[in-house]
């Protein structure tokens, strides 16, 4: 019989350690089956959370070999195949407080979520007595984001969160804000959006971890792009993020390509750049990586590129 070696990170409230279990391999099982089998057949002291076991309650996300998965709908065979191994290491989700073994605490996250007012602020057209009207198309806007099951996989994988727990919002919190910002029934989208901007919206690293691992395939990174657009539409242009994005936007329009030399100045302004980026600039110049005298020429076809800009403006309006 083929055996799997399963190492699980245990935590009893004080000490943490890894415990090894040997489990006979079975075909066609899920990760939740594996955890349940260990608990019921080998070690009833092992703790993890699970409930619905079909990917709707969001209880059972864990890390396996360094990545977050929802245990109930992840086929064991897929995981073994991914890592080409019969050795699995289980750990609780990253970026969460752990209470015991694989069990994490959610309340602090919900507390944090209240920053974005994660509830509808009803618009004046609706009432408790008659509800709202909302078009099918407008409903479609909130269809994907309301798939979120608060499993925490996105937060566990988020690279910004890993180094900025206090400042940055978990992708599922951004999703919740997005969900009400685009909900036509909401009467005060700016009340959800402002806190998003104030909580490091521009620090998303574009690493695509959240969107790549979300078990509900919610387009989280598209949402972040939307949130950024929305803050800029609100006039929030005087920040590094917006200025950085506009540097690219404008360079492509003017020349077709990025002017790397000017990028810091466009993003941070001359003074800030002089204060913080001088050593960087000097070492770049020294290695020939920046040539302050080199200004990119306009590409051939720049007129056509500008037509695309014009057309995109037409499409927007």
């Amino acid at each position: 019989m083929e055996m799997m070696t399963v190492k699980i990170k245990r935590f009893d409230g004080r000490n943490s350690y890894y415990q090894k279990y040997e489990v006979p391999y079975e075909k066609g099982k899920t990760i939740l089956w594996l955890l349940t089998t260990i608990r019921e057949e080998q070690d009833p002291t092992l703790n993890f959370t699970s409930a619905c076991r079909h990917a709707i309650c969001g209880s059972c996300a864990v890390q396996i070999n360094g990545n977050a998965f929802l245990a109930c709908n992840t086929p064991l065979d897929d995981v073994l195949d991914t890592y080409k191994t019969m050795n699995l290491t289980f750990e609780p989700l990253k970026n969460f407080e752990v209470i015991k073994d694989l069990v994490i605490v959610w309340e602090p996250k919900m507390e944090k979520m209240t920053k974005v007012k994660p509830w509808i602020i009803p618009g004046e057209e609706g009432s408790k007595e008659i509800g709202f009207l909302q078009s099918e198309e407008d409903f479609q806007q909130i269809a994907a984001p309301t798939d979120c099951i608060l499993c925490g996989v996105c937060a566990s994988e988020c690279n910004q969160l890993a180094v900025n727990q206090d400042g940055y919002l978990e992708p599922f919190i951004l999703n919740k804000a997005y969900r009400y910002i685009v909900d036509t029934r909401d009467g005060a989208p700016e009340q959800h959006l402002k806190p998003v901007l104030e909580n490091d919206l521009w620090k998303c690293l574009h690493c695509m971890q959240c969107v790549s691992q979300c078990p509900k395939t919610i387009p989280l990174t598209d949402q972040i792009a939307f949130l950024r657009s929305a803050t800029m539409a609100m006039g929030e242009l005087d920040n590094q993020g917006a200025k950085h994005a506009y540097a690219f936007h404008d360079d492509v329009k003017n020349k077709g390509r990025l002017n790397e030399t000017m990028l810091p100045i466009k993003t941070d302004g001359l003074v800030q750049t002089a204060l913080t980026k001088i050593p960087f600039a000097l070492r770049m110049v020294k290695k020939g990586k920046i040539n302050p005298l080199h200004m990119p020429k306009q590409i051939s076809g720049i007129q056509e590129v500008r037509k695309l800009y014009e057309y995109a403006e037409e499409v927007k309006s």
Partner: protein
Amino acid sequence: MTLTYAFFPGCTLESAAEELMISTKKVAEALGIELIELNGWTCCGASHIQDIDNFLSTSINARNIALAESLGVSKLLTVCNTCTLMLRTAKLKMDKNERLKEQVNVGLDRAGLQYKGTVEVTHLLWALLEDYGLENLKKKVTVPLKGLKVANFYGCHIVMPPDVMGFENHRNPQSMEMVAEALGAECVEFDQRLACCGFHAVFPAQKEVMTMTGINCLSPKEAGADCIVTPCPLCQMQLDAYQPDAQKRFDQDITMPIIHLPQLIGLALGISPEELAINRHVVDAIPALQRKLQLA
């Protein structure tokens, strides 16, 4: 055998990562790969323009791809993860959504172009595996990189999101290891193999990104790597050019040379470090390479 690709260099290859332009061309020539640079390519948007205008982001990349289509080739080749992602994202969106494609084409029409969807977007790393073949690559190796311990730093955008990239399993890709091993190098295992370099937020999240850079250098260093190799010039720039800034946040010495994938390949093909412009890096990679290799 001559493989021909339309070539999309991307902005960094014209300035900060000119060494990648140089080494890519050298390696392509040595392998007998023909690269036809697109005339009039624009910046891919570098994962920023969609924050201002999603449709525009798709449109400019549709134009880049349409330029390739007009060359009559089957693949457009890049050497930058983010360029690959941006181009493939635009392509996937249009190929999946006929209405969007038509709309984008209305704009392209004014620019005298048409997006058809006939050209595939690939990365040099994938092309080596898919089109060129590891066996053929091995045959070209004249200086096996024996004893060189490399840390393969993939960068996010060559594997994620998987529905756009899809070349290999994003949780455990192996393409870099396959190429490095074909060249005779030894791959070290390290925690940050699939980490994010943080480049795209280095301005608004400077503090956090510098911390990440330090960790990304320390992890392979502790695993005994001689250098990091990456298929992405943005990762390279972040880890190399910002390394002195990251160092300030760490007590330990984080020094780690960072080279581009084509530079690693070039070394194995017997091309000299200077010809591959390895001397252009902020953290000098040549001593570490010389210690282990009989360099040309």
